[in-house]
């Protein structure tokens, strides 16, 4: 039965040699990094269209529809305020605790949700991966962009909360743009790492909620950051203060909250330096790590 197949080949050449002579390429070969980057860029229209489509379709079954993009952050802020601001009254030492809390919550949720959804970015899209050809990096990027859109809505809500609690509008608000840009690149990188890892280890999806909740408590979102130094040994506090989520949150607080100027975990310049370092390392590292696995995505 196999002889009919072999009869089609030139018996003097192995399939690989025949392929090489006529310039055939291995079907699912991984392109070089530079070429891959170019492909991802060429698919930018697909990436933006797909993330917009995801946002629309995720809320299309609700009655209030896109309004939830605004209602979700408001509800979130209200719940956290009720528990940590009113019941536990953690706010001692912070002048404007509600704005402090909301800034932390919204900025953290951006990274948290992107990472949580990124873990299943490959496995949730197997149908698409097995049907169409496109650089798979488009999928984790889409996950982050969907969350970015949610974040921008949250920022509108946050601006209202910050103003209502008596903070002045300053020029420093403009710094929010570069801060969120850095965080977006960081998130894309981290999402790519999680996407590749999650495509291999499917149980990861069950563990991630606990990991992310631990990260939340370690990021100075729900209580004043100064508590870290008060309650931990020095080396642990230093380690905690290098936490990228904390860095981005503190930068956002620096930009928005005039009342919190003296409570920052480090000097602004140092925060910028650390943020930039995290962005570059995780952004580039994550992309390269994801690219190296390009051949494996979609394997059964």
């Amino acid at each position: 039965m196999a002889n009919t197949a072999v009869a089609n080949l030139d018996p003097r050449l192995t399939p690989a040699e025949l392929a090489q002579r006529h310039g055939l390429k291995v079907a699912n070969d991984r392109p070089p990094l530079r070429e891959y980057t170019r492909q991802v860029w060429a698919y930018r229209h697909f990436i933006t269209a797909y993330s917009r489509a995801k946002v629309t379709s995720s809320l299309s079954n609700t009655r209030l529809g896109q309004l939830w993009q605004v209602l979700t952050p408001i509800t979130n802020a209200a719940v956290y305020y009720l528990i940590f601001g009113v019941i536990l009254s953690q706010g001692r030492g912070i002048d404007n605790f509600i704005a402090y809390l909301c800034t932390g919550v919204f900025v953290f949720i951006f990274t948290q949700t992107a990472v949580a959804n990124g873990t299943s970015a490959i496995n949730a899209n197997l149908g698409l991966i097995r049907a169409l050809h496109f650089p798979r990096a488009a999928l984790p990027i889409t996950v982050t962009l969907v969350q970015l859109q949610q974040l921008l809505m949250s920022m509108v809500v946050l601006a209202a909360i910050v103003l209502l609690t008596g903070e002045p509008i300053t020029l420093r608000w403009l710094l929010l743009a570069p801060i969120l840009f850095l965080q977006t690149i960081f998130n894309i990188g981290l999402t790519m790492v999680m996407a590749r890892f999650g495509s291999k280890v499917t149980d990861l999806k069950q563990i991630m909620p606990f990991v992310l909740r631990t990260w939340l408590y370690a990021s100075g979102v729900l209580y004043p950051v100064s508590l870290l130094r008060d309650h931990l040994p020095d080396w642990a506090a230093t380690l905690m203060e290098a936490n990228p989520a904390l860095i981005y949150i503190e930068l956002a607080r620096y930009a928005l909250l005039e009342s919190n100027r003296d409570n920052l975990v480090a000097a602004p310049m140092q925060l910028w330096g650390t943020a930039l370092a995290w962005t570059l390392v995780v952004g580039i590292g994550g992309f390269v790590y994801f690219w190296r696995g390009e051949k494996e995505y979609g394997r059964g």
Partner: protein
Amino acid sequence: MDVAEQTQAPTDPSTVDSQRVPTVIADDVHVIYRIHKGAAANTGATAALKRIVSRTSTPNIREVHAIKGVSFTAYQGEAIGLIGSNGSGKSSLLRTIAGLLPPARGAVYTLGQPSLLGVNAALLNDLSGERNVALGCLAMGMSPERVKRITPEIIEFSGINERGDFASLPMRTYSSGMGARLRFAIAAAKEHDVLLIDEALATGDRKFRVRSEQRVRELRANAGTVFLVSHSLSSIRDTCERTIWLEGGVLKMDGPTDEVCRAYEGR
């Protein structure tokens, strides 16, 4: 090996070879699906725990060997039918040729980028047909301007607007036939070097079938090679001169359509 081959080439009088340009070469392709046993029925939490504690060697993953060493060469201008019973590995083989499903062993070499025209290409069911068309075209690498230009044509070809304005309704409201027609219309909007068609012609009503067969012929004229998976032998006889018969993941027969179909029917 390289050098030896090149020095040999000029003296090699294989005229047949130089005339027939191979477009797809499958070299001992194996495809293995891995299924986590956690999804199986009789493994409750206690059973899983017991397995971990007692360290029994029961593998947690079950392997399904879908394709077991298939080799063939397809040439430019050929239309090749793929037949075989359900679960014989036809669709898996197509996906592997398209580079969408990595083979576990062996390799597939292709000229250019093969495209899979599947009826199960995943689109977003919550979005309107129109947006799905745009999304599908972008995913095939078209520019936004071209997508804008081509969208009405695709909707027109799919014929989903024959019973009112369905293009602006979410795809989950479509009948399965309508959805399949739209997916086919999207995939057929682009010209391909190697075209892989998975049961696409079997979908839709008679009118659409005639239209899609016409479209496939057009695509074939421009494409290097066409692969067609179908359970309908008549549609294979109409379009393909060569046929590959897969059975249980093994290549059972490969030859002229008439011969293979007769053997297949007489099995």
